[in-house]
């Protein structure tokens, strides 16, 4: 696992810079699964026509996916959450509770997919031609509470 110094990187999206080229999705599925398939990408470019930007797992504190999992299959290694494929029963509750669609179900290989920050070297950030995805060492306070902010529990 490659860290920047001793700190695990986080991803920040600058949505104003995104040009909607889907390169992040392309390299995400390519590097993880060896194929180009937007449905197997852990990062997703959202937006229908016009303006687009990517979203991915925010690695929240008090992550609802982890809390809701009946099998306790979601575990942390360093600062990254993974899904234990042995324990996971594919109930997709994690996918359901995540307000930003950070966990998706891979219907081809029958497993849950989520951003693993490429073990510390996020390919989406590396390949984004617009530098719309940034790797940062310091996690912004609001970001830590990501899900709570989205649920309106915190401002």
């Amino acid at each position: 696992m490659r860290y920047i110094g001793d700190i695990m990187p986080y991803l920040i999206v600058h949505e104003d810079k995104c040009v909607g080229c889907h390169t992040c999705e392309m390299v995400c599925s390519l590097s993880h699964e060896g194929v180009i398939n937007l449905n197997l990408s852990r990062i997703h470019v959202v937006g229908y026509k016009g303006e687009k930007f990517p979203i991915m797992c925010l690695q929240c504190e008090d992550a609802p996916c982890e809390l809701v999992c009946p099998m306790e299959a979601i575990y942390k290694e360093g600062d990254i959450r993974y899904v234990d494929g042995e324990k996971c029963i594919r109930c997709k509750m994690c996918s359901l509770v995540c307000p930003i669609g950070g966990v998706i179900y891979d219907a081809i290989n029958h497993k849950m997919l989520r951003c693993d920050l490429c073990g510390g070297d996020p390919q989406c950030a590396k390949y984004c031609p617009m530098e719309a995805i940034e790797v940062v060492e310091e996690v912004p306070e609001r970001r830590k509470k990501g899900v709570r902010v989205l649920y309106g529990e915190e401002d």
Partner: protein
Amino acid sequence: MSGYTGKILFVDLTQEKIVERDTVKYMEFLGGRGIATKIIYEFGSDTLVFMTGPLTGFISSGSRMDVVSFRNMLVGSNVGGEFPTFLKFAGYDGIVLIGRSEKPAILQIDDDGVSLESVEDLWGKDAFETIDLLTHGQRDIKVAAIGRGGEKGIKTAGIMFSHRNLASRGGLGAIMGSKNLKAIVVHTTNGLEPYNPPELMKVITDIQRSITKSGEFMRFKDWHVNFVPTILKLKMPYFGDYERTWEEAEEAAMNAKEFFEKHTSKRASCFSCPLRCWAIVNYEGEYPINLCQGTFPAITFTLKVKDPELAWKIYLKMQKEGLDIMSTVAVIAYASHLGKVKLGSEEILDFIDKIVNRVGEGDIFAEGIKKAEEHFGVPAVYVKGGMESWSSDIRPFVGSALISTVADSEGVNRALYGFPEFYYYIKKEQAEKMARMFVGEKNAAYPWDYSDAKVKFAVMWENMHIIADSLGVCVIALLTTPLELWCRAYYAITGNRITPSDLIHYAEKIRTLERVVNIEYGGVKDEISPRLFKGEVGLDREKLERMKKKYYELRGWNENGIPMSETLERYDLR
């Protein structure tokens, strides 16, 4: 073999029969433009072909597809966006449409299969409405549709791809309309598997670096606000044939610049492309619309629209009706020359309605500029096959005039994008450097140069376009990056080795095949409208004829432009 999905969808609309054929059989024509031309040769002129290339969907700037058909000669357009990639995700290298559906129909391609559905309620809707109704706002449904222009067989109509890209030139929309096909819908959850994923990641890194270091990438950075004034400086023939200058051009350009500074909300790219050559414009409650920076200036300058808000309305109108802006603008400019419409005014919007609905004389203009000329008897400017000239005129650019005379599948857009003579007046040194690099003669960059070097330069540039259109890569990107890198991409994707000289061999072969198809089915002469040789800015007919002969020689054709038997043998086209 990876890269190709291996299947081409053949749809006989008359008999409602859908079959899959192997791509393998056509692989000796590389892909895209090459395979499409071969299919038309094989299946006859009543064919509309959508064909991706082996690199489509895999590589940076590789989201292109060629759309080719036949009118009185081959017509074709290269289109990007997301549809081509998704078509390959769905498992098809291309779609071939033959015959005519009895009732208005759509072709539905999804993971469960392919079907033709009757959709009479969609007939009569504009291109944007159609796409909205067919996608229901879902990001993974891609649509190619015609607007009312295509339905009514307007000869300047194109095919609209998901709110943005238009396969515009040559009246492809009218051809799709004549087949009674309103749209093609692709919905898939599948993807693509390259031959060597880690190697492909490396190639993507290198190609991205090459593109983002290029002048094109730098230029597109603020192109969305600067393009109109810049195009003015290029001295392109945007004012059209009838009045060669326009005093208010500068002011109009600055107005447009201000308009886009204010209303551009973001930049946008086609699938996998770093170039972001599109701008998203939010104006007056209309949902965001992608601005094409090549065609908008034609509305501003050729139609002499000083008010950018009106120009924008005209732009939107043409997009919604699914019309090719370059050709439609040329038709409107000609109509104004005849006193049928006042340039720079709201009348233009009504006039477009007249054309699209074929009301009164609109019916004549709907048939294109050549037919209108025959009817009214006033000379017009057009290029080979009677097609409206790109940016209304070609005169100050001799290379462009040559290619517009000899091209077998549309001239400038399919052969000379970014040809150095176009930017000679603003970047002389750069243009000359390119000419020296390609043909060892800096004068070949000079717009009025009639030399053999210019011919050679144009041939090479045309080859680059054919390579891009056949590989499935955007030509703007292809030209920024050495062919060696695209060959590496081809290897990582398909597992087959290819060299730059192989690519050039393919290009020459495909170009000769285009000529063979036109001789076989069309016989349209290598001529442009006589008007282009008249007046103080007229082209020199003799010199252009000499260039034509040189062009034939370089292509291995005889002095009448017919491929010689040894050429056909060399390319295995016998």
